[in-house]
């Protein structure tokens, strides 16, 4: 019962909007501090890689981008289930406002990977499983953006987008296990839940900081972008009208 009340409350756009307003400064502040600390540490203070030299320093942005690109998709897939089963509006706001963020993160993972590949593998791009499945992830994100905008009716658009997101979710385990299932140039996972990282602490600590920092900044972006989405969809409600009135320019 209380779980249902919580669920109902969480589905209330006004409640989410207010919570987001309170979280926004904290997410931005801690996210920036952690990410910047991680990046400066990784760029200037972490030791050189004995094999790759300094090019490996790209890892401090490549891994957070790639990591988040996949977890944003998983979050969108969970939201898609909520959209289809409970028809919760907020879930669709999340999917449609965050798809561009996922697309950008996937692009960054691909781009930094290509630039890292040149001095390390001697090539910008190979059509291997990991790289190809990441490229498919980028196309999936773009598909979600285009489909969502192509359908004017809010409910049909939400349903169509949710189905597309759920169909595409098979790609996520393919990305994750591609380095184990197929022969690839790509190195295996840096962090796993079961084993200690194979890199020394001076390398993985800054990496962990930048991953957590980017996660928090993603949280900040989620709050800001979902607030915009809520304002658009709820513009007829009295609380949005009052809020617009008090903030109006």
């Amino acid at each position: 019962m209380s779980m249902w009340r919580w669920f109902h409350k969480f589905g209330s756009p006004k409640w989410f909007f207010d919570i987001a307003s309170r979280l926004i400064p904290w997410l931005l502040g801690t996210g920036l501090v952690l990410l910047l600390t991680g990046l400066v540490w990784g760029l200037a203070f972490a030791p050189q890689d004995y094999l790759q030299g300094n090019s490996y320093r790209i890892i401090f942005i490549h891994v957070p981008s790639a990591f988040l690109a996949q977890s944003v998709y998983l979050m969108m897939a969970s939201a898609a289930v909520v959209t289809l089963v409970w028809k919760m509006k907020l879930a669709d706001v999340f999917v449609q406002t965050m798809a561009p963020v996922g697309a950008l993160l996937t692009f960054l993972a691909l781009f930094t990977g290509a630039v890292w590949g040149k001095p390390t593998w001697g090539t910008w791009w190979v059509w291997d499983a990991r790289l190809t499945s990441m490229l498919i992830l980028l196309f999936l994100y773009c598909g979600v953006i285009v489909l969502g905008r192509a359908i004017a009716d809010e409910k049909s658009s939400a349903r169509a987008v949710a189905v597309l997101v759920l169909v595409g979710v098979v790609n996520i385990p393919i990305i994750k296990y591609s380095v184990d299932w197929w022969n690839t140039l790509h190195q295996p996972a840096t962090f796993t839940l079961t084993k200690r990282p194979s890199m020394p602490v001076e390398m993985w600590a800054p990496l962990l900081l930048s991953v957590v920092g980017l996660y928090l900044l993603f949280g900040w972006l989620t709050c800001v972008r979902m607030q915009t989405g809520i304002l658009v969809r709820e513009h007829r409600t009295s609380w949005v009208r009052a809020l617009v009135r008090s903030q109006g320019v």
Partner: protein
Amino acid sequence: MQFDSFAAFLFMEGHGPYVWTCYAVFTLALVGLAWWSLKQRTAVIRQQYHAQLRAERRQASADAHTATDGSGTPAASFSRIHPS
């Protein structure tokens, strides 16, 4: 610090261009996304604010035109009638 000088830090034993390109694109992309997201929110609020003002003005002028003098006939009005 892993590097002897600032120049060495920038050069990174030849890997500088690769590393700095990645960091520059990453920073620009994220700052751009953050800026765009904030701007979008402000734009939506501003747009709705002006829509509310317009609706109120329309309402007010409609009220003025339909106001009656008590006899049931519309009061004489010298205000200009705005199209739309």
